[in-house]
């Protein structure tokens, strides 16, 4: 089929642009491990309170500066409600839901994941700067969704 010359150039430009984007994304994924949170681990949503480690949600120190935080999301709060970590700490969050779909997001950081009943979500972040960060549910979960929030306090 015949294509007009300028149209051919335009489409080549479009395809080339997408190839560059895809190259950047793929390189970042493979080299830097920059992939979206995609943990594949099931859990019985009706037995979250009895399933370790979610039977005792909270912060654990793995080694100095390295932490794991286990969260349970339920309408309309997170447990634990507050965690305190030193600046520079690397925290891996593990989150699951005891009821409906929730979100788990710390604005202005890269922490953002869906929390689906039946599954465990995981996302990691290094908190370089001290301050109090708001942790919010960013998926509609019911009439009190707007108050579903917690705090991450990063101490200097």
């Amino acid at each position: 089929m015949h294509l007009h010359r300028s149209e051919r150039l335009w489409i080549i430009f479009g395809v080339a642009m997408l190839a560059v984007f895809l190259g950047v994304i793929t390189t970042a994924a493979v080299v830097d491990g920059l992939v979206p949170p995609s943990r594949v681990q099931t859990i019985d949503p009706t037995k979250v309170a009895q399933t370790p480690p979610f039977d005792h949600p909270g912060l654990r120190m793995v080694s100095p500066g390295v932490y794991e935080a286990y969260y349970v999301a339920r309408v309309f709060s997170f447990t634990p409600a507050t965690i305190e970590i030193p600046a520079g700490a690397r925290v891996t969050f593990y989150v699951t839901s005891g009821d409906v779909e929730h979100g788990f997001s710390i604005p202005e950081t890269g922490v953002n994941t869906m929390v689906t009943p039946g599954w465990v979500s995981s996302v990691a972040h290094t908190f370089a700067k001290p301050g109090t960060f708001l942790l919010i549910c960013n998926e509609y979960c019911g009439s009190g969704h707007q108050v579903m929030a917690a705090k991450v306090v990063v101490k200097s």
Partner: protein
Amino acid sequence: MTTVTTTASPAALSRAGGNLLALTHVYTSTLVLGIGALFGMLQGFSRANLIVMPPAFDYYRMLTAHGVLMALVFTTFFITGLFTYCCHETMPRVRSLTLGWIGYCTMLAGTVMTTIIILMGDATVLYTFYAPLKASPFFYFGATLLVLGTWCVAADCIANVIVYKRQNPGSRIPLPAFIATTTMIMWVVATLGVVAEMLLLIPWSLGWTPGIDVGLSRMLFWYFGHPLVYFWIMGAYAIWYTLVPATFGGKVFSDALTRVAFISLLLLSTPVGIHHQYLDPGIAAGWKWLHTVTTYGVVIPSFMTAFAIFASFEIAARRAGRHGFLATVRWLPWGNPVFAGPALGMLLFIPGGLGGIINNSYSMDVLVHNTMWIVGHFHITVGGPVALTFIGASYGLIPALSGRKLYAPRLALAQVYTFFVGMTIMSTAMHWAGLLGSPRRTSDVSYFGSQGAATWHPLMLGAAIGGTLVAISILMFIIVATGTYVANVRSEVPPIFAFAPTDEDAMETPPVLDRLGRWAVIALVLAILAYVGPVTTQIGAHAYLAPGMRTW
């Protein structure tokens, strides 16, 4: 509503019947747009803390109604009306309209049922109805009826094409009918996902099954959810390709390339949905990456469309003796709302499309997922280009279908510009708030006076101002649309809303492009290829079922 004389040919009779059917669809979409806009404006005020919604009109209930009515009902009724017009106008023949009317009535029954249940507060689950939020079974029944009604419209288009090809061997399917049928085939392939999801949700909502596989239901929803977006866009593209050039005496740039663009959209719209689930647990990163690649594929027919549309502008301007960019822009009929609506929509689609590329960018999506950025994005795509195109086209369609003169054409012209300004302000504010981290789908984002959240508030005021302009402009549209019918001024010359002819310099259309059955099979195979891995993995994980819950 076209006057039919006793000497009318069978073709004219078929057109008249088709016109009434199409007009009914278009007026229904107009009414729904008005109701949806009112709810939208109230949400804007509420979120900016300007008003407090009474319990019977709580934020989430109105948000559900706004999302369902705008995303699923307004767009669908307009598109089915437009495509009924495309088929009956270009392939006129004596054929029963029964199937078309059954489709319309089924869609309407589904819409009424769903809307009543939402307003009663028994389905505050938003338009994505994510399980295990459990709505009344009638919500799911109604939504299913709406989809089944559209399948009747699709069957009507396909039946028209089959009969046309039998009666006109060797000739091509007329371009508008080709576009309509290709889009409806894409729609049927896409809605298979949501119908499959309904087969899980309906027995569960009736209490016949104890729980729901949430991951699977989400995957089936998004199998449908993204092609839904392309359904809107293809409706707008149909107008951009075939109707907009006629407003300035222009022509379709290339019949063959238009068909190639629509076939590409048919093939590529469905195998892409997991890009809405980048942040979902339970789906391996590799499947997500695969859908990043396929989603980028859909950008190509959009590039082709951008070229073809602007080429049709430029070629027509040159034939009129205007050369150069500015001369072309000045020459175009900006004083005609039928042109200005879609053309302003095209302008909004430039940032809209670029935003879409950002959202699809795998790792970058983390920064914008479920923030107001996404709300800004779909308002500057479906709320801007698509809605503005449909409104602009209505100013041509309603007079053509009803034989009446457009009421208050100056108000119509002011309307499209008001809408454009309002939507630009609103979606800019929303995008910005999203970049600062403000979540979507949240009635109040003050979070007990948190400092970070305080930066979001001024932007919500901006969104409320823009949203008010949009709501006012939709009221203007309703006045013009209703006024045209009520004033009932017959024009001396019957108003026509013609499809543009094809440019005579364009190439021949290869017959293979018209083999819609073959393309439909390929589309289905591509969808299966993209989903067989994720869906079997999801089922193979034997995820625990979640019991339903009413948390509102």
